[in-house]
């Protein structure tokens, strides 16, 4: 590692070359305030809070953008810097509605935090507010331009991390606003509802659509039979909202909390993750062995990704696995298989999914395939953030809850199902089962390191008793294009496909850092949540989907075999090309 030596407020620090001064300060136990910098993104340098002094130079540096240098000596805090920062905060507040009590970010807002820390007690400057309506056009997120502080994070996230270009700056000077592309309603823009903008916004200008009220009404309606499922990634992140370290596994407490909230049954999306593997794995093996169906097969469990593909890569539709996402499979079997078994009228079932993802709110209404049971397969999606608020508002002392178990018959999961929540996990789970499907044997070591890790694009080869499977994993939507261009090119040249199986998740790190997860997600937090899921996998008695007893049971009792007609009807879907812009 190439390091440089420098001083922060006189204290020597050694730090990796190429780091910024913010990072150097952190090493010296100093926090420098910033409202626009986010470690996921290159410095945008807009807010003006992180200015610091360089010894013997009249010019201030932006700590977010200035790289460390040998012998640099930096002063991060003094009376002048305090005054500048306070003035900048007061200026920002002079164009801000400051209605914290009614704000989605009350208590988690980065601006509110600095206003508190800097002891802002009055509004010295002329107040000028942005008078623009909220954009509530999507079913996933709400944009409130009146709260936007133009930090640029969402635009960078949407354009650079996600490659979507649904958000942009329009206007100049103090008329600048962040707006959906071409000034359309967000839902008519290319937006894929991933919600990464909402997860990165420092203030309450972009937030998940709050549907807690629907949940509360449903559980208090005696005619409804409320059934829930929780996604893999929720269990390793929810704890953060209760001050537990990222990655803490809270599955048992979540089950317990749901029961206290008054639901009839607590199931787990992880069960259907196993089901997805059975279907998708069989589909892959079928494509590989019969030569029917496009290669590579590409995973389809991320609704933001399917939306992206339908808009940006419609030519890849044949490559998509027709398997639905675990959440939608769970919804379909809840109102059919479970309803039958439990003898409940499916019309009275209200199916709720607790998800790390805002796109899931969109997915439940994607098209008619999401009504496979004859009803709305999933009635309501709550994100992890909403779920945390719901628990708190319901007076549940989450941390002291006893661990409980999920209900049968669709609540048990294999380790394979839980790692669906992180990048590489779907691939790994599928390979565990594909190996069995192709060889009749089980892998001795189920941990497939080739597909683990955080690089945006990872490729590898997996040996299945002499057959080499070429696989690739991409996460962070903008990273997918490298892979897909490769596939396109091979197709155009009539070459062998470069891969057999590709896993894509729209969010960096996978669902563990979905757009509906607790705030302040960084790579460090991602790593902790991912470690939590791998631990959950390791601690599972059953590691492979095809070994999950409840999976065996549903095939024996109800579905028959993977890819059966019934499976096709309930568990598979179709895709259509969608325009980037709706007019």
């Amino acid at each position, binding site marked *: 590692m190439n390091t440089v030596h420098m001083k922060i407020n006189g204290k020597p620090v050694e730090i990796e070359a190429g780091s910024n001064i913010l990072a150097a300060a952190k090493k010296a136990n100093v926090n420098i305030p910033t409202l626009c910098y986010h470690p996921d993104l290159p410095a945008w340098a*807009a807010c003006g809070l992180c200015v610091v002094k360089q010894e013997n130079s009249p010019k201030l540096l932006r700590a977010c953008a200035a790289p460390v240098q040998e012998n640099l000596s930096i002063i991060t805090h003094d009376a002048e810097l305090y005054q500048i920062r306070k003035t*900048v905060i007061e200026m*920002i507040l*002079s164009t801000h509605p400051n209605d914290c009590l009614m704000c989605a970010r009350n208590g988690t807002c980065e601006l509110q935090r600095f206003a508190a820390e800097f002891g802002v007690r009055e509004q010295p400057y002329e107040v000028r507010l942005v008078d623009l309506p909220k954009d509530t056009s999507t079913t996933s997120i709400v944009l409130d331009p009146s709260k936007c502080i133009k930090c640029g994070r969402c635009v960078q996230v949407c354009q650079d991390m996600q490659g979507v270009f649904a958000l942009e*700056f329009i206007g100049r*000077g*103090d008329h600048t606003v962040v707006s959906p592309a071409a000034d359309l309603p967000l839902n008519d823009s290319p937006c894929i509802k991933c919600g990464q903008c909402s997860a990165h916004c420092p203030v309450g200008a972009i937030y998940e659509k709050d549907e807690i009220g629907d949940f509360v009404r449903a559980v208090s309606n005696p005619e409804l039979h409320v059934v829930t499922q929780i996604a893999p990634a929720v269990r390793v992140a929810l704890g953060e909202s209760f001050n537990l370290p990222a990655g803490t596994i809270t599955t048992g407490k979540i089950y317990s909390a749901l029961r206290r909230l008054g639901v009839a049954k607590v199931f787990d999306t992880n069960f259907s993750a196993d089901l997805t593997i059975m279907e998708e794995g069989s589909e892959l093996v079928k494509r590989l062995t019969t030569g029917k169906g496009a290669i590579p097969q590409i995973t389809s469990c991320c609704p933001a990704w399917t939306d992206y593909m339908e808009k940006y890569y419609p030519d890849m539709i044949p490559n998509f696995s027709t398997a639905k996402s675990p959440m939608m499979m769970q919804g379909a079997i809840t109102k059919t298989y479970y309803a039958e078994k439990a003898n409940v009228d499916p019309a009275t079932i209200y199916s709720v999914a607790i998800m790390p993802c805002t796109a899931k709110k969109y997915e439940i209404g994607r098209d008619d395939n999401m009504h496979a049971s004859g009803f709305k397969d999933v009635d309501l999606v709550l994100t992890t953030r909403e779920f945390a608020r719901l628990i708190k508002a319901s007076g549940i002392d989450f941390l002291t809850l006893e661990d409980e178990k999920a209900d049968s018959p669709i609540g048990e999961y294999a380790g394979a199902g839980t790692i669906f929540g992180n990048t590489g996990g779907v691939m790994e789970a599928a390979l565990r089962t594909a190996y069995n499907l192709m060889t009749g044997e089980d892998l001795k070591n189920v941990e497939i390191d080739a597909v683990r890790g955080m690089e945006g694009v990872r490729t590898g080869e997996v040996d299945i008793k002499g057959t080499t499977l070429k696989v690739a994993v991409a996460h962070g939507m903008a990273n997918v294009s490298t892979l897909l261009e490769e596939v396109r090119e091979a197709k155009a040249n009539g070459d062998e496909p470069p891969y057999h199986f590709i896993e894509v998740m729209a969010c960096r790190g996978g669902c563990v850092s979905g757009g509906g997860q607790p705030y302040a997600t960084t790579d460090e937090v991602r790593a902790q949540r991912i470690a939590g899921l791998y631990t959950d996998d390791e601690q599972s008695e059953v590691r492979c989907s095809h070994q999950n007893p409840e999976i065996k049971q549903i095939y024996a009792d109800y579905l028959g075999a993977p890819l059966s007609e019934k499976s096709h009807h309930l568990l598979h879907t179709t895709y259509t090309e969608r325009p980037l812009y709706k007019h």
Partner: protein
Amino acid sequence: MSYRNYILVCGGTACESSKATEIYEALVNEIKHQNLTEEVQVIKTGCFGFCEQGPIVKILPEDSFYVQVTPADAKELVEEHIVKGREVKRLLYNKDKSKKHAKVEDIEFYQKQFRIVLRNCGFIDPENIDEYIAREGYAALEKVLFEMTPDQVIDELRTAGLRGRGGAGFPTWMKWNFTKQANGECKYVVCNADEGDPGAYMDRSTLEGDPHSVLEAMTIAGRTVGANQGFIYIRAEYPLAIHRLEIAMAQAREYGLLGKNILNSGFDFDIEIRLGAGAFVCGEETALLASIEGKRGMPVPRPPFPAVKGLWGMPTVINNVETWANIPVIMLKGGDWFSQIGTADSHGTKVFALTGKIRNSGLVEVPMGTTLREIIYDIGGGIANDRKFKAVQTGGPSGGVITADYLDTPIDFASLTKLGSMMGSGGMIVMDEDDCIVDVAKFYLNFSVEESCGKCSPCRIGGRTLANLLEKITKGNGELKDIEQMKEIGSAMKKASLCALGQTAPNPILSTLNYFEDEYMAHIVDKKCPAGKCKSLITYNILEDKCIGCTACARKCPVGAISGERRSVHVIDQAACIKCGACFDTCKFGAIEVR
């Protein structure tokens, strides 16, 4: 000289708009008519600089300087001057009618000037490469290609001590050296011709009058740093400059001075023009590069500097037009020669666009170290209409005012900054006692606020708040605390804005507050505008003893606020008056006063 006479017609934008093309055509026709095409050549040149007196026609070899020429004068000029050899006295420039100032060297406007950048402006036909070559054009390129190593070129620039003329004054040799030493698959050379400060037209005139000097310099830079592609980023509102650049580039390619294998040296270099939409902030180098790349023109933090990571992430030399125009001369005459001109801090010359309440407005090029007094009084001829000098603004909207006390300051980068102003790109606007200093600050600040890109909060929010405070003060609603707020916001903007636009936008306020606090106080405390500019703070009154009741004012008043019988004293209804000043301008008897 192969012709008996040359007739040079100014073809700069200012003179063009006052019929220079028609004059040119009339002269050509007249020469044809007299069968003199073999003996006399008519040339449309770049700007002569003395715009106050345009359109200008100069006849060589007599060096007769004709001013305010009209197309109708063409016949007389040819018949008298060319055919009969008699100067047309009535058109000769003649300041105080007694003395005859006929020759250029006699005109005080030119006497203190020293022309490096503008060496060819007004002397050559910018649309004819041969004329540039005849004045040592492309000799520097030849020298660089065949007699100098890239290191020697950089050494020469270092010896010269040339600093960027685009505003920041960064040493040019250092920039070039960074780019030369940086690694990159390819490198680029960019000319910043986005000039957009109010009142500035130095760069435009240089490109219009001598486009080849910039092309030659960019090619020299390409050779030195290892770039094969150049871009000229020029605002689309400069059609004449763009036209002449296009002609110049085509001619240079034809002569093997641009394109593949330049002068058989094996070196390839070509240039493309990119048009800017006229956003001032796109002149900031990182925003300019973003704009060339097709992105929103917004500054990005430096480092990395463009010299290391510029256009499409590649090392890029970006210089201002005026900086470029200096370079061929430095290569030919040597860095030592250049470093002798100017002051210890700043070598060479600087071109200023002198405007405002000045007698001789125009483009002036002076050695660094010339004093403001020399520019304003000797070259500019002093304040127009014999009013009193109040202040001069240098550095455009980024600069500040300089008062009479500091007129003897020798101009260089450091001295202007010390006075709370800056060199900037070379705008120089002179104000007299009729200018309200708060109004002046408001004008510049509003410019910056309108041109802010909106990226960073100090500039985006602070700028508008400052502008609104000034508006409030000029409207008569100012409070004492406003001054404190302006200082507070101004210093936060200076320190925490991302680019120089926001960092310098408060300068006009802070410097006027510094030198003219009493004038602010008059607006805030006494609710008076001493210069009589701020409409809300003045009243028009009719003086009883002077009004003869002619009714002229009452007839002119657009809102009918003036009443009174014919031949009796008139009165203005203050509640109805909109302070347009029509009555004041109309009254022939001085009966209307402003208070």
